[in-house]
């Protein structure tokens, strides 16, 4: 059950967070790539509301449900995931699990081999943002749209 509606409790604060979201969506990164990363981070953090939302967004983007189902196991997903998606998902995992990984040189080099500096900075802002949204939605038990 929802604990707090944070948009109602702190509209000005949430507006600044949503401003980061608007920036990410206009950053030039492909929407499907962003949604894949949002979904992967949400799966790691266990955010029901965000898993529901970004699975639906990916379906809207035209991604097949067979591919969406394999996002948590993308390394074994063969040609379902292209090189750019693999690099973004690997980066999203190491950055989300920062306390355990420390984001080592090997991970950075792999990501920097696929994305230019601007893209990698934007992707990392997106990963930080979804980590913040996951923390809000889990902390305040935001009800997934599908459960409404």
């Amino acid at each position: 059950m929802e604990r707090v509606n944070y948009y109602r409790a702190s509209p000005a604060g949430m507006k600044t967070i949503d401003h980061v979201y608007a920036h990410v969506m206009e950053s030039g990164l492909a929407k499907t790539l962003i949604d894949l990363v949002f979904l992967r981070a949400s799966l790691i953090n266990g955010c029901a509301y965000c898993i529901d939302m970004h699975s639906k967004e990916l379906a809207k983007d035209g991604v097949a449900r067979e591919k969406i189902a394999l996002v948590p196991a993308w390394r074994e997903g063969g040609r379902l995931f292209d090189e750019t998606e693999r690099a973004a998902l690997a980066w999203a995992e190491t950055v989300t699990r920062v306390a355990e990984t420390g984001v080592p040189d090997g991970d950075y080099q792999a990501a920097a081999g696929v994305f230019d500096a601007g893209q990698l900075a934007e992707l990392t802002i997106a990963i930080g943002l979804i980590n913040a949204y996951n923390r809000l939605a889990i902390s305040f038990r935001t009800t997934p749209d599908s459960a409404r």
Partner: protein
Amino acid sequence: MTKRLDYNQVAPGGAKALGGVYGYVMQSGLPAELVDLVYLRISQINNCAYCLDMHTRDLLKKGVKIEKLALVQAWEEGGNLFSATERAALAWAECVTRVAETGVPDAAYAAARAAFEEKQLVDLTIAIGLMNSYNRMAISFRNTPQAVLGM
């Protein structure tokens, strides 16, 4: 440790948007010292050198004693050095930062709500989410701590 890239330079729009969240938190009504304590504790959990350096300096500037700063990591054993409000904020920051392991259980939420009003707790959680974002940026791109620059 060399800096990998300067995100303020290559993604100024994104950095500015994050700065907007930071600015909001600073004027949200939460005490500045409380916010800095929370920022420091999260940066300890995530191991962010740049952020540890920054928020330790910020707390020193606010007049927080070095004896208290040294115990932030072990605040639960810090006796009367930490007020009830600070303890509630630090416990919430730890639980929310480690969300993948904790899931932020009912007891943690009930304890936090006993110390903070709804808006305060949402703003505190925005601050926690923001510092988790900044830690990830600074670690991913190896921001150089001021101390290493000799400043």
